[in-house]
């Protein structure tokens, strides 16, 4: 029989109990998904609250993307729990000193907020479909109207106020949710690699760039699939947003690393051995060089040269894909990397990711892609496209 516990190989001196990796790749997927939620919501807010008109073509797509990712956020956690059936213990009887206890509240509040904002945003469309359709879907839309068919100008003005208010509340909620995820790691004093005051902000900024990048990729893909021209102004707006935030993200991560090295506390020798050895490729090459600095320079070049047309579309899309990859590597390097450095400060472990199984690579890939599957279905039910006469846009 296959052992249920996977033991990690190690070098140097590690505590006996450390030879089992307790937080798997799924715990890297979890902050990745919450990050996409926060980032996508940022785009929606830039349009709804801050009036970035050029982002209008992706405003509704952003809202749907955020919702789809948020629905899947708890899944990696549930799969990881030893007793998933007891998951609500942390919500029913939250232990207030625990950062993790707040998750259920944060997450459910945020899902409710996204659904409510989505409902207001799509109300004209829902009402129209409810009145037009006679099939089963018509019944679905009629149910969704919640009995309100008033789409008069007065009602629309009222809805707009709600959308604005919810978007305003959503900004601290989305960023609070993700900053809090960073706090879960940053507040653990047992691990030098995690224990940093900068961790929540680092998580936040990497979240924003990942969400905006996802939207850029989704937007370009959707245009190709729908065979319509990409709105270059909108894409440029997304590119500017990525460019601005990636700078902050890079500086923060650089500062964080510099702090560890410069302070040189106990165990720093092993950390240096780690970053220049096993972490060299995932951290410096994949996360920084390829994932962050390349797109930053490329975007800078395109902004500087005023690149437009196909070159811009291809450039921004590739940069966005690189950023998405970089942010995943960041989550990996934090969650897995933190556990590969022994608490003893005298040894290193090596995570062996299984491919199959409840917490394997395949499951991680499925859970990361699942929100996109849901998004595909939702865009069929609630077209987020601004160019069509769907009346989805108020």
């Amino acid at each position, binding site marked *: 029989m296959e052992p249920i516990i996977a033991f990690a190989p190690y070098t140097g001196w590690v*505590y006996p109990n450390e030879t089992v990796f307790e937080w798997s790749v799924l715990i890297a997927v979890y902050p990745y998904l919450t990050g996409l939620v926060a980032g996508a919501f940022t785009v929606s807010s830039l349009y709804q609250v801050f009036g970035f008109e050029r982002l209008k073509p992706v405003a509704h797509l952003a809202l749907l993307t955020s919702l789809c990712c948020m629905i899947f956020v708890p899944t990696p956690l549930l799969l990881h*729990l030893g007793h998933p059936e007891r998951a609500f*213990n942390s919500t029913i009887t939250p232990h*207030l000193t*625990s950062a993790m*206890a707040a998750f259920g509240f944060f997450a459910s509040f945020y899902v409710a907020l996204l659904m409510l904002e989505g409902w207001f945003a799509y109300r004209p469309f829902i009402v129209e479909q409810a009145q037009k359709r006679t099939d089963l879907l018509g019944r679905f839309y009629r149910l969704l109207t919640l009995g309100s068919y008033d789409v008069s100008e007065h009602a629309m003005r009222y809805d707009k106020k709600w959308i604005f208010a919810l978007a305003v509340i959503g900004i601290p909620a989305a960023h609070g949710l993700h900053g809090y995820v960073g706090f879960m790691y940053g507040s653990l004093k047992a691990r030098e690699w995690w224990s940093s005051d900068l961790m929540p902000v680092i998580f936040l900024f990497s979240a924003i760039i990942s969400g905006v990048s996802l939207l850029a990729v989704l937007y370009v893909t959707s245009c190709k699939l729908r065979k319509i021209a990409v709105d270059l102004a909108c894409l440029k707006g997304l590119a500017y947003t990525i460019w601005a935030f990636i700078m902050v993200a890079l500086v923060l991560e650089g500062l964080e690393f510099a702090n560890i090295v410069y302070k040189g506390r106990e165990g720093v020798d092993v950390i240096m051995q780690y970053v220049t050895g096993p972490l060299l490729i995932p951290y410096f090459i994949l996360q920084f060089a390829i994932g962050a600095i390349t797109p930053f320079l490329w975007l800078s070049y395109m902004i500087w040269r005023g690149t437009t047309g196909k070159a811009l579309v291809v450039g921004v899309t590739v940069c966005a894909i690189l950023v998405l990859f970089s942010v995943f590597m960041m989550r990996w390097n934090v969650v897995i990397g933190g556990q590969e450095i022994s608490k003893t400060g005298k040894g290193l472990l090596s995570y062996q990711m299984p491919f199959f199984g409840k917490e394997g690579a395949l499951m991680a890939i499925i859970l990361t892609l699942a929100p996109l599957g849901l998004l595909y279905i939702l865009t069929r039910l609630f077209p987020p496209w601004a160019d069509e006469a769907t009346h989805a846009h108020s």
Partner: protein
Amino acid sequence: MSKQDTKPSLEARREFLSKLGRAATCTGAAVGAAALGVMPAVSAKSPPSAEADSFPTKDYDWTKHQWAFGVDATKCIGCLRCVEACKHENDVPRNAHQFRTWVERYVHIEGEDAVRIDSQQDPVNIEASGSEKEFRFANRYKDAKVEKAFFVPKLCNHCTHPACVQVCPTGATYRTKDGVVLIDHDYCIGCRYCVQACPYGARYFNEEKGVSDKCTWCYHRITKGLQPACVEVCPVDARVFGDTKDKESPISLFIRNNRVQVLRPESGNAPNVFYVGIDKEVN
């Protein structure tokens, strides 16, 4: 609209806004007060969450005891009877990766700067014992010039401000009034945040039961007046256990008569396992 119409509506609006302002101030004050109330509760120095008066048996009053543990590393001979006894007593998985207690060996070899450290789980030691169910320290340094060598028994430190208890999202792990950190296996959700939070590596995850596990100082024994299994079997009295409320108990004498130290005092966890005879590398 006439002037008369406008005026009252403006006044009404002003009145409404001032009400709104007052309401906002009140809410702000309430939130502020709540935050002040919550701050001490969520800090690392919060009191234990367990509040029942008597536990676990009727004739045991947990307010009457304050347990503590002592380790005299100068006495330990590395026989590992404690590790095996603990595995038997507490149904710890019989493998070389999960322990409630373990013993570390520190060896300084002539001409080497770094100390060599291993524990019974080291593959070389497992090979020497021939099984993952029995433990021996392999005689691997017999040909080396050893300058200094000693053993250090380790276990949960049952901290006064345990980081594991602080991070538990359900309160399944808690500190009892008699100073023992326990886990409610019927309530633990198996998130393993506590395993990550413990700076001593004292916790492991029991895959079969789906819950975290660690040393309880044999709470089922000490509440009946017995010694923890590891203390009971130690042939050289390297492990000392007792009630600090009793000034003549073995642990009170151990702390009083020795210059003791704790592991990682900088963590702020305030451990309750006191060590004698450990070196600078031990953490």
